[in-house]
């Protein structure tokens, strides 16, 4: 019987699985597979799995519960093993590696920070601060510019946007880096200019949160900071 695999934990994890439901329409109960010093949390694999809110939420809730009580390596959503003995085999063959990974995230949580900036505000800043861009913009508005002017202005502004957002992003990351064990930056999506995860220890937690909050205040109007966490260490597993 194929099993869906949620997480790997140390064998001494409390593994409080009551009240949690597995992914899939039948909401299967969770159980554990133990080998050596490690445990895998599994359930019967569903016949069919789609990345729907319900199942993604269940996968995440399992990780979140395990994180509350101890150390957990969350698996990526959607992985199944043909049977329990394959899970045992994985835990045995790569046991040292998983134990190392567990030690790396012990007493740590992940925080994911995304940030966006109001585009109009950004463009306004650029036009205010860049003489050539402002002049070109004025000429276009006055109707005295050549036909290529909009393209030149756009290119100029796009360059400014990118440079400003990249340095804002690195400014935010560097400001928070002292309060994290590890930092994992990803390409931002949508209107965001920042998408970064931090691995933060218990001891660093207060300062990390205080610093993030004050950064968000500091940036002020026109910026939106979205911090999610404490999360299981998805980005550091």
């Amino acid at each position, binding site marked *: 019987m194929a099993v869906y695999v949620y997480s790997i934990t140390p064998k001494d994890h409390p593994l409080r699985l009551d009240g949690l439901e597995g992914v899939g329409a039948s909401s299967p109960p969770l159980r554990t597979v133990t080998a050596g010093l490690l445990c895998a949390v599994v359930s019967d694999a569903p016949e069919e799995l789609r990345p729907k809110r319900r199942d993604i939420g269940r996968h995440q809730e399992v990780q979140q519960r395990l994180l509350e009580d101890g150390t957990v390596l969350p698996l990526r959503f959607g992985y199944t093993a043909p049977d329990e003995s394959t899970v045992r085999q994985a835990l045995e063959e790569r046991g040292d590696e998983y134990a190392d990974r567990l030690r790396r995230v012990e007493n740590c949580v992940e925080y994911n920070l995304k940030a966006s900036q109001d585009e109009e505000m950004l463009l306004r800043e650029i036009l205010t601060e860049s003489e050539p861009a402002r002049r070109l913009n004025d000429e276009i508005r006055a109707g005295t510019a050549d036909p290529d002017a909009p393209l030149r202005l756009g290119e100029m*502004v796009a360059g400014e946007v990118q440079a400003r957002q990249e*340095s804002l992003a690195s*400014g935010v990351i560097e400001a928070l880096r002292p309060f994290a064990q590890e930092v994992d930056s990803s390409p931002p999506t949508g209107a965001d200019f920042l998408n970064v*995860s931090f691995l933060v220890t218990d001891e660093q937690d207060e300062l990390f949160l205080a610093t993030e909050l004050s950064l968000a205040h500091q940036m002020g109007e026109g910026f939106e900071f979205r911090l999610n966490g404490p*999360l299981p260490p998805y980005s550091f597993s």
Partner: protein
Amino acid sequence: MSVVPQSGGGLARGGGSANLYDVLELILDRGLVIDIFIRVSLVGIEILKIDIRIVVASVDTYLRFAEACNRLDLESGRKAPSQLTDLVGDTMESGARGKSKGALSGAGEAITDTIRSVTGKDDEPEEEEKKETAERRRPARRSSRREKSASREEE
């Protein structure tokens, strides 16, 4: 009773769709991969990838930026808060233009300033306003964290 943090963990518990959306990529695209396991084929998962921001360098983007600039009325525009301009100024200095001061020191100073204003008593009125806005955007995050640490200590 289980204490599930409101944000991030609160996907199915009133965390709101914004929350789910924000951590989706972590759940679907990060996390441990065990190579002898098989990933169920997931219809719809590629939608996420499409959303990755398109590189700024394209004619379409240029024209869109130009149009947006043309529409701006610089005279009537509200001025950005001075602190913001300072921070942007500071971080910009570390950018491609390479002036004297770096992003790190700029942002660092900015933090010290606000840590003081958050923890200290010398809040300026305008500072208060910003704080409220920021806190509205992210309800219950700090308190939920406290619940969590509290539940850990009880063990």
